[in-house]
């Protein structure tokens, strides 16, 4: 059992360390920002998590970013509360909010909470900028990794010549004209 668990952990580590495209990594980061800002314990957070799982965004970067932004989100509560309050009490949106709230599962989203609503709006607004900003960063990161790998390969000791078969040796000898 323990061996099986260790094997699974090792597999997850390999997957996380696997190379990915800058786009997927940037999408993971953007989803992480959105997921991290929204308070947990409601259907919005669950749906965002499922979207993260369903897309081909980088999961490890998304989860790490979500964790980091979760710690920071409480600092933004005054802002998100004011924003959420303004949106939820906007007269033009009242009818829409009220009809939406009567739908099944919507009450589980806790969107009638000012912080949830405000942080979702902030997260959505920050989603694409986060993608755009992070994509070049991840591009450079990947380039840096490639360069580093190449340097490592060039400075490595030459590989020993494999012992070839007599037929191969014979074939490699140029024949007399």
């Amino acid at each position, binding site marked *: 059992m323990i061996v099986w668990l260790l094997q*699974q952990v090792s*597999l*997850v580590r390999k*997957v*996380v360390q*696997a190379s990915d495209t800058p786009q997927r990594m940037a999408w993971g980061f953007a989803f992480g920002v959105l997921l991290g800002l929204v*308070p947990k314990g409601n259907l919005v957070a669950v749906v965002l998590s499922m979207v993260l*799982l*369903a897309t*081909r965004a980088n*999961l*490890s970067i998304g989860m790490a970013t979500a964790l980091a932004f979760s710690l920071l989100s*409480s600092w933004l*509560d005054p802002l*998100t*509360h004011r924003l*959420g*309050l303004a949106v*939820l*009490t906007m007269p033009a949106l009242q009818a829409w*909010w*009220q009809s*939406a*709230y*009567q739908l*099944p*599962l919507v*009450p*589980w989203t806790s969107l*009638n*909470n*000012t*912080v*949830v609503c*405000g942080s979702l709006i902030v997260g959505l607004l920050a989603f694409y900028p986060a993608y755009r900003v992070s994509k070049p960063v991840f591009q450079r990161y990947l380039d840096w990794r490639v360069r580093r790998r190449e340097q490592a390969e060039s400075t490595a000791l030459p590989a020993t010549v494999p012992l070839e078969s007599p037929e191969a040796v014979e074939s490699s000898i140029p024949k007399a004209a």
Partner: protein
Amino acid sequence: MIRWSYLLPRLLLLLTVWLGLHFGAGPAARWAFVTAGQSAIGGKVDIDQVHVNLLAGRLDIRQASVADPRSPLRNLVQFDEGVFHLDSQALLHRRLVVEQGALRGIRLDTERSESGALEPREPAEATDWASSQIAVAGREWLEGLGQRLDAKLEDELETVRVGKELWQRWPREYSALEDRVHDWRGRIERLQQIVKQPPRGNVLEQANFYQQQAMTLDQMRKDLVQLHRDLQRLGQQAGQDRQSLDAARRHDEQRIRELVKFDQLDPRNLTEYLLDEETSRRVEDCLAWLQRGQELMNVAGQAPELNQIEGRGAWIDLTTGPQPPDVLIRHLELDGVALWGGQSVAFRGTAEGLTHQPARHGQPAQLHLRTEGAVAATIDCSLDFTTQLPSSRLRIACPQLAQPARNLGRDGQLAVGVAPGAAALQAELELVGRQVSGRVEWHQPDVQLTTQLGSRLGGQRLAQHVQSSVGQIRELRAVVHLEGELPRPRWRLQSDLGSQLATGINAAVRQELAQRAGDLSDQADRLLQEQQARLDDFILGKQAELVEKLNLGEQQLADFQQLVTQRLNLPKELLGRELPLNKLFR
């Protein structure tokens, strides 16, 4: 080709979510119930297991107990199993609605091994019965009667006091007179001896000596007259003292007549004296449960964990029209065991419309219970918190409540023993805000009563008199009318027990006091006659004795007079006068 780098983490996360839902929903629900329950009740909530089946919409709770916040070492309630069928539509709208549920193996007011206190709460407001002063009046009446019957009036009779006083005074008076008579007679005897001696000196000296003796004789005569007068005065005084004894007797008669007069025992006082403890305990129990229900509803309605008033941000009401409650138990089957009057009683029943947001529900919470076995009763309770002014109604009907043998009243004073039997109890109480009203009726037919009276109240003898009227009582009926504001509601107790018993007691007490007065009167008469006879005998004896002594003294005085006249050869008439003997020799 399968892209494991994409699929594997997602599969693992989905597996984790599924495992979390499957195995974590129960503990999460358990945590939620414990947190919300503790917040609502204020006592520790212990739940052994919670199973959640979201697909089937079923919730199972096993072995739960809720500590009593007012008594941390006791459980308010505990149950073995709870099964709840949830409304899935309501669940989609984030409301926990139990369409049908059942709590089995309920036990009320059980002991806890460890304290269930979370935070100290103010003690419950104890009901204070202002009207129990009437019961105190009954006790005071009996106490007064006890003092009256217990008083040693024999020792307080005026006849006895005056008789004792006279008996102490008369011997002193006669002794003093006797002493004076004895002294007088001693003096006259000494004079006789002096005069009988042969004369000394010359004639003139002799004449002078005898003249002095004659003067002394005169004084002795006067003293004798005074002694006669004093003796006569004592005789007159004896007559006055007899009148004093008669006056004392009349005074005693007055007191004895007052003894017979007594304030009639007020039947209402007696009713409350006898039934105060018994009925107030029942009423207090009923009111305590009503208050507890109201308090629980109040606390639950304000619990932060149940009302979205904690956490980050603010909650905006987006509902249109009437908003249903977030948590509602529409129908709950109950069965369990409770203690009633020291007996373990099995009960079954239903609870409907239980919610911490009754105003949203718009209907009062209803509780219907039916007990079985030794105590068969139906209990209907309605807790209406749908308006600003909460109101609760409690109706208890118990047609056959087994009653053990018990004593009404107080041992050592007046106690009425009630033989074991069955009683019917009907209670209808309403609590609107802090205003309580209602009635509690208690009826015990085919009753057998025995009276016990303390020794101060005449003991077994008077109890026999009372028993003759108590023995005619065939049923006990008491109705408590309750009205007023907590914690001091007014109450009025009505029962025919007091009136029936008061009639018997008044008659018995009257008879007892009349008998007592007769005995005292006879005793006073006997004492008066004894005192008078003894005093008369004494006075007559002493009078005769002193008269005899004074007669003897007169005889002695006469002899002395004759002796002096012989010595002086003077006519008897001149004795006692100062003769001009000095002039004879000038």
